[in-house]
């Protein structure tokens, strides 16, 4: 399964890029999240939510081939 990941704010800084495509299978957002934390353990300390194909979703949301998944942290600055 191939999905595109979009990174924002501190998460794009952590991964050193704004987006990437990954090929791996996972059933839902929760599994994707733990896989990403394995790659970047620091991600565990950050707060963020997920959006799949521009819809903000909960962690039990399923993922299918070709989905675009965004990791969105809250911003504090003003």
């Amino acid at each position, binding site marked *: 399964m191939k999905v595109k990941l979009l990174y924002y704010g501190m998460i794009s800084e952590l991964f050193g890029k704004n987006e990437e495509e990954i090929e791996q299978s996972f059933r839902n957002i929760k599994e994707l999240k733990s896989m990403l934390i394995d790659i970047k353990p620091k991600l565990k300390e950050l707060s963020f939510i997920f959006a799949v194909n521009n819809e903000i979703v909960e962690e039990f949301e399923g993922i299918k081939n070709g989905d675009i998944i965004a990791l969105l942290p*809250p911003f*504090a*600055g003003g």
Partner: protein
Amino acid sequence: MLNKRENIRYSRHISLDNVGIEGQEKLKNAKILVIGAGGLGCPVLQYLTAVGIGNIGIIDFDIVEESNLQRQILFSTIDKGNNKATVAATKLMMQNPFVHFDIYENKLTNKNAIELFENYDLIIDGTDNFSTRYLVNDASIITGKPLVYGAIHKYEGQVSVFNYNNGPSYRCIFPDPPKAGSIPNCSKLGVIGVLPGIIGSFMANEAIKIVLKIGEVLSGKLMIHNILNNHSINMNIKKNMNEIQKVIDRDLEFKEFDYDLFCNQKDSHSINEITIVELKKIFDKNDSNYQLLDVREKWEEPKMNKQSVINIPLNRIDDEYDIIDINKETIVFCQRGIQSLQCIEILERKGYKNLINLKEGMIKW
């Protein structure tokens, strides 16, 4: 009713199909509260004033600092040390004499938010920390006011409109506040000067659309804009009635709710305090472990003429702070214990630790 000069001033609005005289009168009758006159607040205020929003409230307890000037474009070098809400209103009155301003030099808290929000039709959040953002969100739910939200991080900004026509709220996107210290604010991270200008302009635009009832309001959507690659994306937000209901159910306890604790900001924001009795003891002993910093004006009484007291009025702290020994414990005092707290916040941003506030100030001497 618009007067003759207003008709001329707003003629480019009036000639627009979906504004006209009727629309301009809607703008004139609108009452908007802008929370924070900082990076986002400045452009928001400038455009709301220019387009002729009739009543604008500005709340900000902070003072203008040198490091604000690369992005907070209402302020000039000579404004350093003065309250942001007051300086902003002074400039904006020159920009448009047909706008009425309410100036609030105090901090927005859960004790004063509800009464304040009741006086306005629309709230704009230009704050710079999570506990105030959750507070503003909850107070706008309780008072039933739409909320224009904007927030920035280095080169990216988020914009949305909450609580609009029963739409989602901030808690529908971010029900839980971030982990302690995981997301610093602009003063620690840095921000490019133009970013708040762009995001603040988006915010002003949403406010104007809401007042005029034109276009599509950014309700139920979170816009994210990146100024390095000019990518902009709108994420759809689902309304989470559970989260909103929790706020409504807490209505009566709102004034007791500890937002700093909720947002894990308690440790970083709790400031050590001493009482006047303890300060007197330190004075009498001439305890050299402490450095005493008086941030009052030279004429304020009672005077503290001891050698060990450094006197830097708050409005000059930005220029003169380097005479304060960073390695010593410093007791900061003023007349009522409020300016000294502001001073402590400024010094903390400059890397000072071991700062102690004199509770209730010298008035108790």
